[in-house]
């Protein structure tokens, strides 16, 4: 088994004058979970669909399980599970019927009834696809991707539009897949999803990779952590800054919103609260925060992910 389940190197895809994917490179090691994170239109779906063999690359190389998906589709398809962003089911087919059909393509499928049950679809097993809610359609599509017990799955926006309970069921399935050694490549525009689930995050914007690494690597750098609190505006911070260790920094980022950056340890926290007590200030909403992927994305692209 090759060490990398998916290797994409310098991938380029153009549609007419538009370059949808512009030199994307990443590697998903076997048994890991990789998230392609980026806003709509970043080129995530095009990248994944080239890996799935639906589209041809204009330049660059793609290796899936060591094979070229454009040529070795027949050999790859039984080993790879695919979840499209939408559609893919006969509109008149019942969910149970459709899942059993896809299961019938596989030599050793999971039990379709069990899978429906775990994904909260047991009660709609006899409901035609076109009458399922968007979230139910999403989960059926996910079930279709995994029912054949693939060693690699490509999931395009697996939790888009799901309610919190359905999203949790999906996250549990994704974590269990990874724990059982299935390589998972997913696209998402939810920061939190990438941060919580993925071993590797590839941030894509306008067809290019703007950053990649583990969530920890991506959120490191700059201030390690932040301490934030609310208090009356225009407090005198000089004494606080003097009391803080060298390299730390305190500021009022907005009226009444205070941020302390630096190595946030228990000692520093005590210093801040002591300063508050000395000034008769009750710090509200006092929180120690990690730099989030959202912050990273904002720094790299100059805009929010969902703007």
């Amino acid at each position, binding site marked *: 088994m090759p060490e990398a389940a998916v290797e994409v190197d310098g991938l380029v895809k153009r549609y007419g004058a538009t370059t949808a994917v512009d030199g994307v490179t990443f590697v998903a090691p076997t048994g890991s979970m990789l998230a392609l994170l980026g806003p709509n239109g970043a080129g995530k779906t095009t990248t994944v669909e080239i890996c799935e063999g*639906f589209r041809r690359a204009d330049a660059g190389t793609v290796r899936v399980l060591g094979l070229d998906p454009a040529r070795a589709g027949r050999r790859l*398809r039984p080993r790879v599970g695919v979840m499209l962003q939408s559609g893919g089911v006969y509109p008149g087919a019942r969910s149970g019927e459709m899942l059993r059909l896809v299961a*019938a*393509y596989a030599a050793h499928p999971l039990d379709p009834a069990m899978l429906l049950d775990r994904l909260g679809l047991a009660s709609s097993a006899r409901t035609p696809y076109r009458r399922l809610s968007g979230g139910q359609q999403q989960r059926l599509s996910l079930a279709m991707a995994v029912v054949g017990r693939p060693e690699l799955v490509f999931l395009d926006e697996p939790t888009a539009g799901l309610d919190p309970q359905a999203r949790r069921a999906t996250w549990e399935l994704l974590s269990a897949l990874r724990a*059982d050694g299935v390589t998972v490549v997913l696209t998402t525009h939810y920061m939190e999803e990438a941060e919580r*689930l993925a071993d590797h995050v590839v941030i894509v914007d306008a067809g290019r990779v703007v950053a990649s690494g583990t969530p920890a690597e991506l959120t490191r750098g700059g201030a390690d952590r932040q301490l934030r609190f609310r208090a009356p505006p225009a407090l005198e911070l000089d004494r606080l800054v003097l009391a803080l260790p060298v390299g730390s920094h305190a500021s009022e980022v907005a009226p009444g919103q205070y941020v302390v950056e630096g190595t946030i340890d228990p000692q520093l926290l005590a210093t801040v609260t002591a300063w508050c007590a000395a000034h008769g200030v009750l710090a509200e909403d006092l929180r120690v925060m990690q730099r989030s992927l959202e912050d990273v994305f904002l720094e790299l692209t100059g805009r929010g992910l969902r703007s």
Partner: protein
Amino acid sequence: MTEPTAATTNGNGPAASGWAPGELAPRPGAAPLGRMLLAQAATELRLTFRNGEVVLLTLVIPVLLLVLFTAVPLVDVGGRRVDFLVPGVLALAVLSTSFTGLAIATGFERQYGVLKRLGATALPRGVLIAAKSLGVLAVEAVQAVLLVAVGLGLGWSPHGSVFAVAGLLVAGTAAFAGLGLLLAGTLKALTTLVTANFIYILLLVGGGVIFPLTSFPSGVRHVLGLLPVAALSDGLRAVLRQGAAVPVHDWVTLLVWAAVGLTAAARTFRWE
């Protein structure tokens, strides 16, 4: 942001979920082709008969036309009406399934991404096409049994070789299916739906199915005679009415349409 209430681990520890370790361990592999073929054909057949419009088009309308035009002397067919009508309505039934029904279903499967999605499974395209063919032939078998039973009930007296009839029905199916897939593979689903229904009605009137081609002026008649549905009903009548062999020109017409239609469909079909 909408957040699940329970945290999921960062993939490195056991998830707090109902999945037992190893339950999802990979065990990839394709099922035997025969099992895929049967599952696919059975599903397609179930979906076909679940669709009320399809049942109307393929079963109800042909039977109604057969009964109505046999009972009421609306057209002079030069002989017993039921002997003229059963072969014509059989041809119409084949048209409704292998052209109109197939085109509409395939058009919507394309639009809804079904063909794309199935293309990403272990199901080979050849098996998908074989399953669709089996599904079409199975629907036609149901139609044939029903129309023959109704025809016999109306006093129809068939002649000729069963094999010649079966051969004609298969050749007609190939000709219509090629044209239906040509529409479905290139046009939008809704355009396919309208076009396929419109052609069905045109051929119902002008294809020698219910109204004999002899009722048209001779110039028009010769052109209409080149239509696949006209060749099919003419061939079926030659066998079933007179017990004769299938006229060569009917075979040639059907096979040329089949070759042209299937080749054009194969060249132009877009799977998504």
